[in-house]
């Protein structure tokens, strides 16, 4: 866009810009730069603190031991139980949410175009994006735990995360499917390929990398969710490898638990937990970025 290059004034013919206008322009420019700097302060501060304070407990014990029998003031103890829990819960919710979300997106783009139902679904997907995570947790509490009578488990947590993941993946997939050129679909129909095969073997593979990116970003987002997990998996300090039975740990709830303890050893563990969590999330984000980037270069 030509707007990026500063407008070169032509003072010789039209007269120069009056000082008042010039000053106003410069002031706004200064404010806009300032806005960016202001936004960088918390980001740098958070990352700096997480790294410097998280390094203190970054040892093997942290990744191989649980908090079982470790009191808040004790040194040692680790987040093994929490890491296991987070990985299992996020994996389960991915397995549930991704197929559902992709099918919904396929309905919205391939089957439901211009239908009223599709518009309604699309609207509520948007609304669902705005559901507070704690409400998703309360819903699973009300449905799964209080109505169906199951007890706290990692799986209940996965269900809550699924609700948070669904709309994000639907949106991402929908955007990607819309980008698939119609020529491809029509070429496939012209060869006599049924519609579902066209979708499965022509449309989806074309949009594949984009969908993977969307899924990874969604995974990264739900991985850091704490509130719904507090209500559904409860808190345990012991290792529980079975997500379907008994309370399970998770990294965010581990941080929450340790941070509420005033002892320095506990606070240190909380920071290392935060470092671990942020590292996983940033890696997922970076990987998603790389995939998008590679695709852009390839399509050029």
């Amino acid at each position: 866009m030509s707007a990026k290059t500063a407008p070169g004034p032509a003072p010789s013919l039209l007269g120069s810009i009056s000082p008042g206008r010039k000053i106003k322009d410069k002031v706004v420019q200064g404010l806009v730069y300032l806005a960016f700097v202001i936004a960088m302060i918390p980001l740098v501060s958070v990352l700096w603190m997480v790294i410097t304070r998280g390094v203190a407990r970054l040892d093997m014990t942290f990744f191989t031991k649980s908090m079982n029998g470790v009191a808040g003031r004790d040194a040692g103890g680790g987040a093994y139980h929490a890491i296991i829990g987070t990985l299992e819960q996020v994996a389960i919710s991915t397995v549930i949410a991704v197929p559902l979300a992709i099918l919904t997106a396929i309905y919205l783009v391939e089957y439901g175009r211009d239908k009223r139902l599709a518009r309604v679904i699309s609207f509520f997907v948007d609304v669902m994006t705005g559901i507070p995570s704690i409400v998703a947790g309360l819903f699973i509490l009300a449905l799964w735990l209080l109505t169906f009578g199951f007890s706290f488990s990692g799986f209940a947590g996965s269900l809550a995360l699924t609700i948070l993941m669904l709309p994000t993946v639907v949106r991402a997939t929908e955007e990607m499917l819309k980008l698939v050129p119609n020529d491809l679909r029509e070429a496939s129909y012209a060869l006599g390929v049924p519609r579902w095969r066209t979708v499965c073997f022509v449309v989806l593979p074309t949009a594949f990398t984009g969908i993977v990116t969307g899924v990874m970003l969604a995974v990264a987002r739900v991985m850091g969710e704490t509130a719904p997990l507090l209500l559904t998996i409860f808190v345990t300090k012991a290792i529980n490898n079975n997500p379907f039975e008994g309370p399970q740990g998770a990294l965010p709830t581990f941080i929450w638990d340790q941070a509420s303890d005033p002892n320095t050893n506990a606070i240190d563990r909380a920071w290392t937990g935060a470092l671990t969590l942020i590292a996983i999330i940033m890696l997922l984000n970076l990987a998603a970025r790389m995939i998008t980037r590679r695709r852009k270069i390839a399509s050029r």
Partner: protein
Amino acid sequence: MTSDTGVESSVAATSAGAAQRRMSTGRAGDKIFANGALGSGVLLLAIMAAIAVFLIWKAIPALQANEANFVTDQEWNPNAAPPTFGIAQLAFGTVISSFLALIMATPVAIGIALFITYYAPKRLASGLGYIVDLLAAVPSIVYGLWGLTFLVTKMDDVAVFLNDYFGWIPLFGGDSVGGRSIFTASVVLAIMILPIISSISREVFAQVPTANIEAALALGATRWEMIRMAVLPFGRSGMISASMLGLGRALGETIAVAMVLSTAAGISIHVLKDGGNTIAGNIANSFAEASETGRGALIASGLVLFLITLIVNMGARAIVARRKEFV
């Protein structure tokens, strides 16, 4: 897209007899697949409906047992012998902290969006956008931890300063101000909603017709005048809906607020004072000790939060949708 595939495949079938069989499987597959896609779409709607239904259903017993007025009472004692609880203080804390966050975040976020779209060198723009998006990637629990151990101590001084010099404004008045206040919570919230507001504003700014921009520049407008005349009027509704979506995010934010606030009872307009509480923060903090009625009461408060965010989000989406029709 609109053509019936059956017709097309029958043309193919005349040339190859073997395709006859494949065509029929294709039809069955088509039906299964189409219904599967439709089914998951409908399931999504069902989940939305179920959220409302189950929250209401599980909230009713607690609301019936409630001895106080749920709407006006300020105390939250659902675990007491005759349970008494009201949403007034929590709703007040939620709304005021989110609005303060919105007021702080919106100008900065729009500034960032303008910076990335119109001021930053073009080659850096997408990288800078990614850096701002990183703010959104930091989990709320980490913001909570950061707020609790770092920001709270800094905000102590800020609160004293504001109270000393601007104490005549009722919002900043009161005595014994501190760091674990509604004000600090809203600063954390403002940081958390910055990326969503700025990324949506960026999308809107990217859609401003180049012709308008060039016309403004050709008339001799400075960069700021071009933005004021061409960009901001075009993006107004987009910016409004972006900040409303940010508001929705702030209203529902739980963990960071729960960690930063030191909870105290009672509605107070003095946002610099330690204490205050929000709906979401209260759920996180008091769930572990909640009795059966207590859980019901928390679900009832969650229902209120759900309704507030629903209204805000639907309003934002409606603005976006109306704008799409115009363009």
